[in-house]
Structures are given as structure tokens and as C-alpha cells.
């Protein structure tokens, strides 16, 4: 209970009367002071009685239009209060949004119930630009006595959970060389079909979904074929998700990380449906940011889902990735061979740096993605499926990481987001963009040539289609011009 300035003014008046009684030796002023003291105590007692009664009868409801909004998606908060009878207490009820959200000024979130009011309701919007879990605390109720002597602040009502998730891309392409590939069976993203692992090819029969047709095989065999997927239950899946700064590229809601998150969530949904054990390692600029061991409990699936939906990119490091400026070991060996026969000052100076590959190994081991792959261990050799989701910004590192992951995995699925298809304005120069895409495709194929490795491109379907269509149009135009 807090007292107001009015209360202290009355206290001062009472003390003044008491002082007068002493100064003038007049008991009548002491009686006046007694009446003032009794008045204040009686008002306090009445306030407590009214407040206690209000606390048992007041109904406060706070509701959210959604508990799992996307980032920047407005959430409507409805605050309502009801008391069965008018009360001598004024109520000011303020909804307190979580720290991660933004909303209007406090007066838009504040509901006033006067002494004669029994019901009130207001709505306001909040939104969050960042993903994360938060709690909407119970509304704060400031109760004021109608005489203005006392106030009290209470927190009443239910606490609400709010989980803000990242926006998901709308047009996800998963494929090889611009062709869609049905990685998950009936659907490419989101909620999945019954399979995950490409198993066998069979002829198309009426009733099969057209989306399951494998067009590459169909073209090769000249008859429609569909791809079957196996649904092993002793399989384990480990997601390695890169969320370093380079994954920021892209427009809001459709960044590389958004696409990576979507594919990871799709794997999660599949494994949850099939009760397949799954784990998650997320890789930030400075190393592992989350390391959730493989398990198949409901808590595990929820934990991974929360981690994925709230994941954001890590800040860029001040130092460039060492691997991004390094050559491959094979290139280093070749250069060392050349330099060994070079007696010039240039060759003599450089040769020691290429003479040993140890520094290269140390540099690799300091890279977060490689370090995460190095920690791959499984109690059941041959049962682990590693799903590596990253971009093409760290090619040498990715190359070595995939090589390492094969040793501990039955199969490695690599999903790579081509930077050129995410950069705003990246398609402004079509020739450059197409050549960059070709280089990416070459890299993807190189990875896919490893045994037990399947590499996919993960990109915005509309941008990829636009790039390929524009290039095809130009090629046709050029052919027409030469003829």
C-alpha cells in the first residue's frame, strides 16, 4: 500500500493540531488530533476491506490473437476486466508487453475502470522484430481509493507464453542443377510424406502423385518412373545447421537462414512422425552455438523446434574465415612440388610454407563447421544420417567438412544455398549471375560425387526459374541472330 500526498497533508494537519495542544496547553486540539488519526486509520481499514473484496471478485482476462506469431507479425492483445458491482476503488489496468516486442504508448495499453464502471475492454497490437520465446506478464492493476489517500499495485491474471518465430520462405526450391528433386517424398517442404531417404525407382502406376515422378529417370528410361523412399526406424538423423553471418543474405523473411531453417524443420517433422531419433548442432561464427544430442523423445523434438524457430544469425567475425582464403591440400602439394625445383629467391622463400601441410590442418580444425563435423560420433556405425545445411560462402571448408562427415555417417545430405540467388540485385547482371550459378552448380556436383553424399541446392524457386528462363531466352535469341 502506498500513501498519497493528500494522506501526508492530513497527517501534517493532525500533527499540527497535536503541536497546538502542547503549545497552548489546550486538550481540545489533542481531541482534534485524535479525530484526524482515527479518520486516517478508518480510511485505511476501509481501503483494505474494499481492496480484499475487489481482489476476490475482479476478473481480468488477457488474450493473444496468436501465441506463435512470425517476426513482425502483429499480435492483437485483448485486455478485459469485469467486477460484479461498482466499487469505491478506481482501477487502472495496464498490459505489459514483453521486452522483445514493440507496441504503442502506455495509454493505449491502459484500461480505466471508474468507481461506477463494472466492465471494460481494450485491444492493442504488439509485434516483435526478433524471434524468441517470451512471457507476457499478468496485467498490472493500480488501485486508487476514491478519497485519493491510498494506492496499491497488484499483478493479477494469467501469464501468457509468446513464441516469436522467424518468417518462412514461400517458394522453396530443392534440387539439382535447377531441377526440382522430391527429397521428402510427396512434399518438398513443411509437413512431410512417409519417406526421407531415396530408396528405389519403379514404374509409375495410376494413382501415384505426379509430384513423385522422377523426371531424370523418366527421361532416361522413356517411361514415367517414381522414386520410392525408405522409412527405416533405426536410423538416426543429425542436423548440422550453419547460421553464421553469411546466412543473413536475402530479403527479410527469405534469407538463406530462413530457407535453411525451413528444410531443417521439414526434417524435424519427418523424424517426429516416424519417431526417428534426431539431434541438432548449430554452427555460429565462433563455433557450436547449440549441441542437442540425438534422441527421440517428445521433449527432444520440441527443444529442437524451439531452437530452430528462434535461431538467428551470429555477428560477423572481425577476422575472415581462414579457409576462405586457403587452397586445398592437393593444390598445396602441387605448388610445393613446383617450388621444390625452383631455385629463385621467390621459390626459396615460399617453399617452406608449402613444405608441410600441418598449418593447413590446424586452420581447418579452427573452423567452426569443420570442428562440429569432427565431433560426430555414433554408437551405431552406419546408422547416422548427417544433414548439413549451409551456404556456398565457405567452399573449401565445406568440402573438407563433407569429407569428414562421410567417415561417421551412413549418408550425408548437403543442402547449399547459392549466394547469388539470395543477394538483392544479384540478378541485375544476368550473365555474371548465370556464370556464378554455374560455378555453384559445379561445386555442388563435386560434393555429390562423393560416395554416400547427396548434395542439393536450396534456393528461392522463383529467382532460380527467372535466372534460367532469362538465360535460355538470351541463348535462343543469340541462336536466332546467328542464323
Amino acid at each position, binding site marked *: 500500500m502506498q500513501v498519497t500526498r493528500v494522506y501526508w497533508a492530513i497527517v501534517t494537519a493532525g500533527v499540527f493540531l497535536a503541536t497546538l*495542544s502542547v503549545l497552548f496547553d*489546550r486538550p481540545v486540539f489533542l481531541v482534534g488530533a485524535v479525530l*484526524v488519526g482515527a479518520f486516517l486509520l478508518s480510511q485505511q481499514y476501509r481501503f483494505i476491506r474494499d481492496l480484499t473484496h475487489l481482489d476476490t471478485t475482479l476478473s481480468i482476462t488477457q488474450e493473444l490473437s496468436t501465441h506463435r506469431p512470425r517476426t513482425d507479425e502483429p499480435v492483437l492483445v485483448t485486455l478485459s476486466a469485469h467486477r460484479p458491482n461498482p466499487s*469505491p476503488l478506481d482501477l487502472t489496468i495496464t498490459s505489459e508487453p514483453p521486452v522483445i516486442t514493440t507496441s504503442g504508448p502506455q495509454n493505449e495499453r491502459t484500461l480505466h475502470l471508474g468507481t461506477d464502471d463494472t466492465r471494460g475492454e481494450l485491444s492493442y497490437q504488439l509485434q516483435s522484430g526478433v524471434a524468441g520465446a517470451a512471457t507476457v506478464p499478468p496485467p498490472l492493476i493500480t488501485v486508487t481509493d476514491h478519497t485519493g489517500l491510498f494506492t496499491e499495485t497488484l499483478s493479477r491474471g494469467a501469464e501468457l507464453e509468446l513464441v516469436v518465430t522467424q518468417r518462412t520462405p514461400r517458394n522453396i526450391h530443392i534440387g539439382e542443377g535447377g531441377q526440382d528433386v522430391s527429397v521428402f517424398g510427396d512434399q518438398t517442404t513443411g509437413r512431410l510424406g512417409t519417406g526421407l531417404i531415396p530408396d528405389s525407382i519403379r514404374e509409375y502406376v495410376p494413382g501415384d502423385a505426379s509430384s513423385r515422378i522422377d523426371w531424370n529417370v523418366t527421361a532416361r528410361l522413356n517411361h514415367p518412373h517414381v522414386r520410392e523412399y525408405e522409412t527405416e526406424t533405426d536410423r538416426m538423423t543429425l542436423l548440422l545447421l550453419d547460421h553464421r553471418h553469411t546466412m543473413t543474405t536475402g530479403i527479410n523473411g527469405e534469407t538463406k537462414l530462413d530457407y535453411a531453417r525451413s528444410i531443417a524443420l521439414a526434417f524435424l517433422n519427418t523424424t517426429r512422425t516416424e519417431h526417428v531419433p534426431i539431434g541438432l548442432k548449430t554452427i555460429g561464427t565462433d563455433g557450436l552455438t547449440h549441441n542437442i544430442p540425438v534422441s527421440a523423445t517428445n521433449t527432444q523434438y520440441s527443444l529442437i523446434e524451439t531452437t530452430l524457430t528462434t535461431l538467428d544469425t551470429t555477428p560477423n567475425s572481425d577476422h575472415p574465415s581462414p579457409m576462405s582464403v586457403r587452397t586445398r591440400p592437393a593444390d598445396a602439394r602441387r605448388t610445393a612440388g613446383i617450388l621444390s625445383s625452383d631455385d629463385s629467391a621467390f621459390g626459396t622463400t615460399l617453399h617452406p610454407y608449402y613444405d608441410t601441410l600441418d598449418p593447413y590442418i590446424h586452420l581447418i580444425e579452427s573452423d567452426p563447421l569443420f570442428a562440429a563435423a569432427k565431433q560426430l560420433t555414433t554408437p551405431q556405425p552406419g546408422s547416422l544420417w548427417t544433414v548439413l545445411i549451409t551456404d556456398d560462402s565457405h567452399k573449401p571448408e565445406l568440402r573438407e567438412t563433407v569429407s569428414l562427415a562421410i567417415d561417421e555417417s551412413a549418408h550425408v545430405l548437403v543442402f547449399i544455398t547459392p549466394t547469388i540467388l539470395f543477394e538483392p540485385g544479384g540478378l541485375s547482371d544476368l550473365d555474371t549471375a548465370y556464370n556464378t550459378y554455374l560455378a555453384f552448380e559445379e561445386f555442388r556436383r563435386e560434393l555429390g560425387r562423393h560416395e554416400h553424399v547427396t548434395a542439393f541446392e536450396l534456393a528461392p524457386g522463383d529467382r532460380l526459374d527467372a535466372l534460367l528462363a532469362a538465360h535460355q531466352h538470351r541463348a535462343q535469341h543469340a541462336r536466332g541472330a546467328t542464323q
Partner: protein
Amino acid sequence: MSTAPLNDRLADLAREHTTLAGALGVIVVAVAYSSTGLLGALTGIVLIGIWMVSPPIVVFFLGQTLVIVFWPDSPLSSLWLVETGLFAILAGSLTAGRTPLVSLGSYVIITGFLLGITGYTYQITGSLLKPTGVLIVTTGLFAYAFHRYELVTLDLIPDQ
């Protein structure tokens, strides 16, 4: 639903409770003042006017302090009428709540208790200094006890 700012309402609320008890009280005070002469009668009328536009505590304070002007040497026993009127003015503002009888009853009981304890102290000591101290300490202790009672009842004590 009221949309007026709370501070504005507080000023209004102080004048809203011109209750019957309060009206009787201020009339009694005015009559008591009138018994001292023309100036006393004018003072009584002014007090009624102030009571109509001001919080009751203002009229109470003026009515109490002006005693020294109109009854400079009168003993307490001869001032029972004006004190009764002043008591009624404060009691009037307590009858406007949800449970007026309980409020009024608590006021009567607390007044009786404080009067008893200060009067007893005055009888024992024969001076007004110690009863004044007893009054201040007792009122302060009661106020704090009410405060703690409220915190416990409403579960407002923060976790340690």
C-alpha cells in the same frame, strides 16, 4: 467507462461526498460558532460554504483551529458541541463507501480507543506532551499493522 485522467478525478471525488452526516455535522459546528456572537455566526456560514466546495478535512481543520479564536479559555467540557460536529463532518465522508456501517463503526471504535488511551495517559501524567506522543506512536503502529495485514492478505510480500 471513465476516460478522465485519474488526477482530475481525485480532486472531484474529494467533493463528491456531501453526505447527510457531514451536512448535520457542519450545521452543528456553525450553530456552536454562532453561540459566540455575530462574528461566530459569520464564521459558521463561511464554514458551511467551504464544506460545500472543499474536502471535509479542510472544514474540519479550520473549525478545529478557529476554536482558539472563539473559545480562548474555555475548558474541553464546554466544547463538546463543536467537537461533535467536527466528528460528524469526518464521519460523513466515511459513509459513502460499499459498507458504510462497517466504516462508520470502525471510525467510532478507533476514535474511542485513541481517546481512551490518550485521555488515560493525560490523567496519569497531567501534561499534554506524553499523551501527544502516545497518540502519534499508537496511530503509527496501527497504520503499519494495517499495511502488513494488507500485504499478507493479498499475497504481496515479495519472495526473499
